[in-house]
């Protein structure tokens, strides 16, 4: 041991409490400080599984991932099954009123009193009327624009810009006979369940959408 290390040790020894009880308390306090410091320095992470390709179900993963990135978190979205549609070059997310009985039907234009009115559309009509999906999609599109909500495409671009890892499920690609050229080139990986679990195992927040 060199003289300097001995000196350093000696200095530290002077700041250490002499009796055992105080030493114990001192160690507890140091441990708390160290743990708090580690907690502060920790980079949080978010891992989302996106399984739906409709416009309404596309918002939650993209909004949460972009926000997490803005907070300095590591964020990733794993797109599987119908969620893969959201990684297509031609983004064509529609609003499906099917199985969405609570979906409010509101007009995006007209006088204020009319816009607040909920127009009840029975599921039987929403599901069977030809063109209803396009109608609902167009209405939602207009509402989104009027309210200043970003489009899915905008949010996806922000994801790419802010290094959110966009992961595609290889099994789904094979299942639906997709071609890789149909998808945006920014996809960070074509992976399976094993790789995804490895990716998500340390996530602070993990969501299934």
């Amino acid at each position, binding site marked *: 041991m060199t003289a300097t290390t001995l000196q350093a040790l000696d200095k530290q020894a002077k700041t250490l409490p002499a009796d055992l009880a105080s030493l114990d308390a001192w160690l507890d306090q140091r441990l708390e400080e160290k743990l708090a410091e580690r907690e502060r320095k920790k980079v949080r992470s978010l891992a989302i599984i996106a399984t739906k390709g409709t416009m309404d179900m596309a918002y939650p993963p993209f909004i949460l991932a972009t926000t997490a990135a803005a907070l300095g978190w590591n964020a990733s979205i794993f797109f599987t099954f119908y969620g893969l549609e959201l990684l297509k070059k031609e983004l064509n997310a529609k609003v499906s009123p099917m199985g969405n009985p609570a979906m409010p039907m509101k007009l995006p234009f007209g006088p204020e009193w009319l816009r607040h009115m909920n127009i009840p559309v029975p599921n039987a009509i929403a599901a069977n009327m030809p063109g209803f999906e396009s109608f609902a999609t167009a209405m939602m599109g207009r509402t989104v624009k009027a309210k200043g909500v*970003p489009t899915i495409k905008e949010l996806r671009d922000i994801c790419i810009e802010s290094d959110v890892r966009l992961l595609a499920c290889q099994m789904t690609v094979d299942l639906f006979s997709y071609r890789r050229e149909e998808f945006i080139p920014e996809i960070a990986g074509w992976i399976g369940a094993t790789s995804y679990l490895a990716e998500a195992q340390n996530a602070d927040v993990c969501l299934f959408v």
Partner: protein
Amino acid sequence: MEATQTLDARGLTCPLPILRTKKALNNLQTGELLRVFATDPGSVNDMAAFCQQTGNTLVTSQKSGDGLEFFIRKG
């Protein structure tokens, strides 16, 4: 208060005010002030949470006209 930069996020909804704020802060030096105008009522809580998590300081958060005004000091 003298802000180095002003960001107009009026008319934008969640999460855009936060994303634009983050982007604007990237161009500032530590200690400099950013002034943000917004109309999204959710941004009152969001700005506070954002600053707390990112080590920036929310100096003021108040109503301004029919919108909101925030001063953020880059940490």
